[in-house]
């Protein structure tokens, strides 16, 4: 746990970069510091491992004032990854990752094992990459090594200053996803600095929005998007914050499970009854394994009253359905693209498991919007 208590940072020229910051970074969570340039996010982060001195207040690291530790000892137990990566070009990948373990005096065998383990963790083949030099790696690979190096001595805490900032958008997405997967396994306490709100929403368990050295709002991404505290936060998170919020929610959590559906073998009467019973316009058609095959609506049944196969609209489940693991935003996108008010939800085999409606998404957004307006 890291606790900021009324932390102030004043530079020699009188500029107050951080002005009375108080917040708690919880164990095992990614806490994102975000805000416009000059808001003090990086300064705040750099005070944690004392790369910058604290003018007033204090920062508790694992319950102890961080000034009670010798600076080097403190830094060795806090992983550090930066945007410029800062790999040492004269050292091999192995030597780079081994820096902190060597500073801590680990034995060579243990270091070697650890390095291989970390390379595998960040998705690099140890046998191929161990003895390469940073110049022989691509930008994305370098940043993977950068992350591995920050994890070198298995520090409980990590500081990451825009670690994926200098990487092309596609690779960045991949690295973000991979890092989230890694974090699921290692559960580090992480302070993650970024200026990219999308990255913050994606990576953060909690987001601290800073402005002029002060904390404006500190909440989970969903709360932040649903209930921005004031105009500054609302502007900062963007006009599309409802969409962003939908990006946080999984279809699995929003869908309704009792979706009107009929078997391929059923009669048109069965289909009509199912539709009427549910008071909807259409029903999904599934085969004997429950795999989505298409849909049938009232109009189709009227035109082809004899055969369900003729009345239904066929469609591949990959095209007309969304996966349970998709985000609500993707479901919305699917509905907008196809002009439907409802979209079926399928599992990995394509079996229908539920559906999600446009109305449900709207209600979700309304809820947040209204409360957000009231709060401001």
């Amino acid at each position, binding site marked *: 746990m890291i606790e900021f208590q009324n932390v102030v940072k004043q530079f020699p020229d009188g500029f107050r970069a951080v002005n009375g910051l108080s917040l708690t970074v919880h164990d095992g969570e990614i806490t994102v510091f975000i805000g416009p340039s000059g808001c003090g996010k990086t300064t705040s982060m750099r005070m944690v491992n004392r790369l910058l001195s604290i003018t007033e207040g204090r920062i508790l690291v694992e319950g102890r004032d961080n000034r009670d530790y010798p600076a*080097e000892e*403190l830094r060795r137990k806090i992983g550090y990854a930066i945007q410029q990566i*800062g790999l*040492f070009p004269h050292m091999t990948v192995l030597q780079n990752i081994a820096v*902190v373990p060597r500073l801590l005096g680990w034995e060579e065998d243990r270091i070697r094992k650890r390095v291989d383990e970390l390379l595998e963790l960040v998705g690099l083949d140890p046998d191929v990459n161990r003895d390469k030099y940073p*110049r022989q790696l691509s930008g994305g690979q370098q940043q993977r090594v950068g992350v591995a190096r920050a994890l070198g001595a298995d520090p409980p805490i990590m500081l990451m200053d825009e670690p994926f900032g200098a990487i092309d958008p596609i690779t960045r997405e991949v690295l973000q996803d991979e890092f989230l997967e890694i974090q699921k396994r290692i559960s580090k306490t992480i302070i993650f600095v970024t200026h990219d709100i999308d990255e913050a929403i994606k990576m953060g368990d909690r987001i601290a929005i800073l402005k002029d050295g002060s904390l404006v709002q500190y909440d989970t991404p969903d709360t932040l998007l649903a209930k921005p505290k004031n105009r500054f936060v609302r502007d900062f998170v963007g006009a599309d914050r409802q969409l962003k919020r939908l990006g946080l929610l999984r279809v699995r959590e929003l869908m309704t499970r009792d979706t009107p559906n009929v078997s391929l073998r059923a009669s048109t009467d069965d289909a009509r009854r199912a539709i009427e019973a549910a008071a909807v316009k259409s029903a999904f058609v599934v085969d004997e394994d429950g795999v989505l095959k298409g849909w049938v609506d009232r109009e189709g049944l009227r035109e082809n009253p004899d055969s369900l196969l003729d009345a239904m609209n066929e469609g591949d489940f990959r095209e007309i359905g969304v996966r349970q693991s998709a985000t609500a935003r993707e479901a919305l996108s699917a509905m907008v693209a196809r002009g439907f008010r409802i979209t079926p939800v399928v599992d990995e085999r394509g079996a229908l498991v539920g559906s999600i409606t446009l109305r449900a998404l709207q209600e979700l957004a309304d809820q947040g919007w209204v409360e957000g307006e009231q709060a401001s």
Partner: protein
Amino acid sequence: MSGLRRFFTPAALVWLVFAVLLFAALSVRETIHDPQLRAAGVTEASIVPDLWLPVFRFSPSTLLEMHGSDDLRVLGFGLLPADVSDSPNPAAGSAGAPWRVSLGWFALLMVVIEGLLGLRYAGVDEKLVRPLVRAAGIFLVIWSFYGHEPFWDWMLHGIFPSSPDLLYNSNTVISLAGQHLTLVIISSILTVAIGLALGILVTRAEFREFLPLVSDVVNSGQTVPTLAIVAIMAPIIGFGFWPAIVALILYGLLPVVRNTIVGLEGVDPAMIDAARGMGMTPSQILWQIEVPNASRIILAGVRTSVVINVGTAALGAYVGSGGFGNPIASGLNQAIQPWVLLGALSAALLAILLDYILGRVEYVMTPKGLIIER
């Protein structure tokens, strides 16, 4: 077959050609024209030298003297017949002394060494043994030529056929080379030590305010003519070895200090930030991160400084520090052109040789990760 091809690396082939040329030249005997050599009884000799191994020895007059093979005893090679004396003209190279090895055989030895290294490191990216072996081989070849008076006699006679004087009359070429090299080595070691220390010091945060001062002083060191520094130092320190050393240090400091500063300042700040953030101490950051990354630029400065020093050291003759400046100064005084040329050629050859060797050293000492390409 492929083994044979790997044995005859380009370097091995060059040594082989060189060896053949040396053996061919060995059969040609030249008449000696220099009066002193003739007086010593040498009237005819081959221009191909025998191998001269350099030996460092301490002597009271100069701190360190570099000699030819007449001092092999010092290192206990056990090869030297006891009767070889320190005569001013052991010209003699090829006369007598049956244990001496003709340079042709040494070149053949180098063929074998290069070939074996070629086999040993075939296809391997090796940047330590091979460059150093080659540099050492080339140094020994040049050094052997310095030690072979008949070679210089032949060359100077070829250029000045009518001159009665050829070789410098008060010292052998090899001992001039020893003195010159001693001046250069001692002054360079001190220059590098002082220059590195200054460069490192003024790039530390605590002493950064001295950076302009130091670079001014160092710059002015090079604007003052060396001869003037030598002349000023002589009354203060006295004549001989040390005033020349002081002048050489002052003169050679600029490239070392400047390149050290430029090199250290050029290290990516993000790298240093990462190093601090990982918990390296300032001295660990300096020696494990900053210096290795600046090494290429620093070494380039050292190389420049040493080469400059070879030329500047010739001026040491005016305060009696010896070296190739002696035949130049005496030759100019007495209008004996072969002496001037002897000093100038030998000094130039030494500058080229040291530049080559330092180039190799620079290559060896630059971290592989900084040279490597994708």
